[in-house]
């Protein structure tokens, strides 16, 4: 009679991958809004542009790989990659930096590994790391100064477009500068904390608007937590270990970047809630997530403090991506009815 026979379960929850991804994008919106408020149109333009590039390159690769394009575009994962990159890149980064980063992220770090779910590394961060090492100048100088620090209003929308797409970078000169993390790191040691803050870049503001950006991302992260799209382990472990490192090694504000700057400046919250939690490349066991988060936090502190890069979310996440499968193998949870967890790799006979 040919009835439909499928394996159970025959019913399904309302969740879907595209909804998950859409929620992630949604949760970034407050952060994006605050960034636009303090740093101008650059980030918004970047986000839109990067999303377009991400979708286009995904579609192109899918076409070449003879996969159903709309089916995979629907999952919104390329969109997430684009949005995260747009948020992470400097607001005044020239368009080709964004283009290279995004296309590389989608094509090489995601589709080359077999598409969604198969990439061992966080695609957005691979793209980011590529442009960071390839175009260090653009990546360190194209940051916008917050309205708080510069004390002026933001650069107009048209001018921002010109800066990004037409290369009229001089237009943005008055509005751009090093990030607080960068500036503090380079000025401290030679100066005391007070004198550093008196410098022009800080204009008396420690975080200069970045704290609001981070708060907004934190809010978005809490939304994701509430929707059970991410779990608490990675963000919490990451922020805790970062704080702990900062308290142990960097208690002296006159020598090291203070804790508040670590937590509330740069891409800390974006990294903790949106990037390190990327499920595909992160650890998946509960304990593993704790270790993974803690590792990311420690690496973040180490590179920020002793490395040559002012911010290091990309590198620390990528480094931990390497370790994730190993961490997973040794942190399997104890299952129901077992005294102990079975860990490690199965023994060969």
């Amino acid at each position, binding site marked *: 009679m040919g009835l439909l026979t499928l*394996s159970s379960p025959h019913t399904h929850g309302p969740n879907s991958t595209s909804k998950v991804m859409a929620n992630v994008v949604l949760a970034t919106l407050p952060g994006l809004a605050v960034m636009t408020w303090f740093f101008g149109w650059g980030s918004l333009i970047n986000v839109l542009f990067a999303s377009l590039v991400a979708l286009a390159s995904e579609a192109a690769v899918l076409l070449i*790989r*003879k*996969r*159903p394009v709309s089916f995979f575009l629907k999952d919104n994962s390329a969109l997430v990659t684009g949005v995260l990159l747009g948020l992470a890149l400097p607001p005044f980064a020239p368009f080709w930096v964004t283009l290279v980063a995004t296309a590389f992220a989608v094509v090489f770090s995601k589709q080359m590994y077999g598409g969604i779910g198969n990439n061992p590394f966080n695609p957005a961060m691979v793209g980011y790391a590529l442009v960071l090492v390839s175009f260090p100048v653009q990546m360190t100088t194209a940051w916008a100064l917050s309205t708080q620090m510069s004390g002026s209003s933001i650069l107009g929308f048209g001018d921002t477009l010109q800066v990004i797409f037409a290369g009229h970078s001089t237009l943005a000169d008055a509005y751009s500068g090093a990030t607080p993390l960068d500036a503090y790191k380079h000025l401290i040691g030679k100066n005391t904390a007070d004198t550093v803050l008196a410098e022009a870049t800080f204009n008396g503001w420690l975080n200069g608007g970045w704290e609001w950006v981070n708060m907004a991302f934190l809010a978005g992260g809490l939304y994701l937590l509430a929707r059970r799209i991410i779990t608490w382990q990675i963000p919490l472990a990451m922020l805790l270990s970062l704080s702990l490192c900062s308290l142990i090694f960097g208690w002296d504000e006159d020598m090291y970047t203070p804790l508040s700057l670590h937590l509330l400046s740069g891409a800390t919250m974006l990294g903790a809630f949106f990037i390190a939690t990327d499920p595909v490349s992160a650890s998946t066991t509960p304990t593993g997530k704790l270790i993974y988060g803690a590792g990311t936090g420690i690496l973040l502190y180490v590179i920020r403090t002793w490395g040559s890069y002012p911010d290091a979310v990309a590198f620390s996440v990528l480094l931990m991506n390497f370790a994730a499968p190993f961490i997973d193998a040794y942190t399997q949870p104890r299952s129901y009815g077992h005294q102990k967890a079975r860990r490690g790799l199965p023994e060969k006979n």
Partner: protein
Amino acid sequence: MSAALWTIVIAVGVLAVLAILFGALLGFAAVRFKVEGNPVVDQINNLLPQTQCGQCGYPGCKPYAEAIAGGDKINKCPPGGESTIQALADLLGVEPEPLDAEHGAEKDVPTVAFIREEECIGCTKCIQACPVDAILGAAKQMHTVIADECTGCDLCVEPCPVDCIDMIPLSKDTTTWYWQAPTSGVELIATDRRPLTGDAA
């Protein structure tokens, strides 16, 4: 000059000492962790299907296992088929080769011998042929196959003077049936899906 000489001497000396040390360590380990016997033969034998059919050209699986350990090809066992070759290749760290057709083809479905009992004349020939003593019976008595023990090696079919032994396919029943892995969805469209055997290792 002499300082440079000294540096070189020291470097060489240190290396030499290290080499001796590691050599001693390895030597010790080789003695201390020596594995008795020739377990590789047993390991190989464990991978062979133990059908004992002799299609490989050896009188049973164990002799073939010994031959493999001695350097024979790993693709001579039709009952084991590709999966056994793959397992052997994994074990021995060699390239898997396709089954040598000279020794026969892999059966699609496992079979067991079945004696049409009314025709059996009780000649005991099949009993003598069966490598695993899976046939029960005495002279001039009707014989029967213990289906659970029969490896499906076909060896009893030929000697039967009245041709009363059939090899019947072993079909699945509700206790041995199981779901196959899903094939719908992305897999159907995937062009780059890995073959189930092959480069999986």
